[in-house]
């Protein structure tokens, strides 16, 4: 923000970054129409449902007669033009799982091609944020792997002193926002909550929010019983933990810093073998 603050102040048309969450429309396939509409909404683009496509037929510039019910192509062109005009350089797609869910093989590649095209046309950096399911995208093609960088935000591990302290600090920060009197010092229960939330601050935040809601519903007094009721059920937690551990295992080989020089030696050997086979 600081880097762009001066430019933002100087140019009221400049929007350096756009943050959206990927739409889950309830349909079997990912809705690109909703995706582009969300970007348009984030950019405060007017008349998003009335975009017109322009075609070049020979040397003629033609447009569709009706502006009602615009096509996805028209929306994409409009949004690309808008991102370019607003000089947006970062598009953050939060909760990006709907992008990969239900997409298999070619359709997943098509999705990534559409995103790559948007990125190329507008000179955008795409930040795709989500759970470990997104790792499928990197394994999709070498082209994509070359252009991608994975930033892993791991959960806080139990048994690691620094992680435990950080989790405790996050808990203390969240407690400050609980608008109730007589809330006991929750950091005393830091270890218990750490386990109950498997070290994820997101789960912790949701748990505290649920506890607050229960407390407000029962007269506005905080109690340990309310906090207990707000904890995730054991089965849900196990399911989350299983997925998280699987994801952590996968990302181990994909994140920067995971490679060693020995790996490159292995790759050399692999290439050597391949050449021999070809002969």
């Amino acid at each position, binding site marked *: 923000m600081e880097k762009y603050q001066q430019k933002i102040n100087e140019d009221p048309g400049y929007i350096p970054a756009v943050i959206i969450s990927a739409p889950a429309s309830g349909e079997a396939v990912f809705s690109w129409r909703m995706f582009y509409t969300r970007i348009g909404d984030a950019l405060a683009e007017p008349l998003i449902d009335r975009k017109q496509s322009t075609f070049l037929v020979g040397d003629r510039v033609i447009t569709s007669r009706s502006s009602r019910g615009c096509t996805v192509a028209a929306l994409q062109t409009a949004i690309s033009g808008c991102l370019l*005009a607003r000089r947006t350089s970062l598009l953050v797609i939060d909760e990006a799982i709907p992008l990969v869910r239900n997409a298999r093989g070619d359709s997943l590649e098509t999705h990534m091609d559409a995103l790559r095209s948007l990125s190329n046309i507008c000179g955008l950096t795409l930040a795709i944020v989500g759970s470990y399911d997104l790792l499928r995208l990197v394994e999709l093609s070498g082209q994509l792997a070359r252009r991608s960088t994975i930033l892993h935000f791991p959960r806080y591990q139990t048994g690691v002193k620094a992680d435990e302290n950080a989790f405790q600090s996050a808990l203390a920060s969240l407690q400050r926002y609980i608008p109730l009197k007589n809330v006991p010092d929750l950091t005393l229960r830091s270890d218990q909550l750490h386990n109950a939330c498997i070290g994820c601050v997101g789960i912790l935040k949701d748990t505290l929010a649920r506890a607050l809601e229960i407390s407000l519903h029962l007269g506005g007094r905080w109690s340990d019983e309310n906090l207990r009721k707000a904890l995730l059920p054991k089965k849900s937690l196990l399911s989350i933990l299983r997925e998280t551990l699987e994801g952590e295992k996968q990302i181990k080989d994909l994140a920067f810093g995971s490679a060693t020089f020995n790996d490159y030696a292995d790759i050399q050997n692999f290439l050597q073998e391949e050449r021999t086979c070809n002969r």
Partner: protein
Amino acid sequence: MQSLIHESELSSWEHTKVIPKRSHLIRLEPRGLGTPFRESLSSYFLRLADAHSVSPNTFYRYLVSPELNVNRMLAAGYSTNAWESSGFNSLGQIPLGWTKFLQEQTCVEGLSTLCLLPLREKISRRMLMSDVNRWCPICIEESEKERIPFGQLLWKLHGVYACYRHGIRLLSQCGCGQGRLSSVQQAKLLPHICKHCGRSLGKADSGAIIPAQPEDIVQAKLLGELLGSDLFSGAGPKYKHGVSHFLKAVIWPFADGNIPKLARTLGKADSVIHYWIQNHCKLSLPNAVLIARTFSCSIRDVLIGDASMAQVSKEMVERSEMPKAPPPSHEEIRASLESMLRGPSPVSLAEAARRIGVDRSGLTHSHPEICKELTSRWREERHQESLDLHREKAEAYRDTARKIAKSGIRPTRRRVSDLLNGQHVAFDPRDREACDRACQDAMLEFGLDR
């Protein structure tokens, strides 16, 4: 669910940065600012609508008209396609409202200089803008190479028939007569695209590019220099009655303080010069051009009253020394009128007065009978012409409607209009009626009415 974060605490959150309000519309930079070839407001509007990928009509209907008082504009006779009217780039209420709206929405300053608003206090609205859409194909081609084609304000001015940069005549027709689009297609409305065929206006046939008359080039240059002057940058002097000062300054050195002599030099009546000197009215643009050309100075100098650059031209000296012709006698006027009455083609009263060199109302008073005959002959001729034209059009509609119906398609006004090279039959009620009748007849004839 209640938020975990208190609003009061959120505002004091150390990482929260306040982002100033962003412009509602894309901040599109106008082209050619500060030069004689500045973009026109209508061109800017079309480009802005295109930047948002919406048609100008949609843009106008959903964004502009709720903000501007459209009903009042419509009542004043402006069409819904305001950007196509000649007054859009002028200096009235319409460009005033539009520039204010567009400036607020785009946060771009200086849009008022894309029309003639900077001259609002100095120039009359009379004979200001051209009703004909003109362009220079070479200028458009050049701007296309720079990837941002636009239309110039200079081309919209009354009396500009040439591009003085390229020394050619401005075009007013694309030459797409035979190549128009079908009714299902629509050309993109952009300043450099022909709205009938969708082709670039910068790709004119070499035969269509004709060298301009020197007179036209001089006139275009004078007007171009006005658009590039400091009056449009906002830095110019704020002088309301400049022409009065200018004439007062030139009357002694160039006309010996003699108003009739100055009037002869400018080819105007003495009363007109008196009128201008006494600040009774704003100067019209053609008159400003006339004064500037007569005194070999810029229009800007005339408008701000700076006569320091005024010079005596040979033509001016000759004109001022020419004795004023005596007015024609009563008998001479009568003879002229009678000859016009007997002439092969009818002449209007205004034309007759112009040819004789007298005032029209004076002519009606002095020779009422002949004038009456002259007028009735003229009206009859016009009426006949109008009937012939209407008959021709009705025949064309009938033929076209039959042609459409013959191919099994229901003829409609739009289809007939498209086949007739886009003639807008909808604008004249008589044409509309004739076209509808032709369509109905054709449907009956070919059994398409069921």
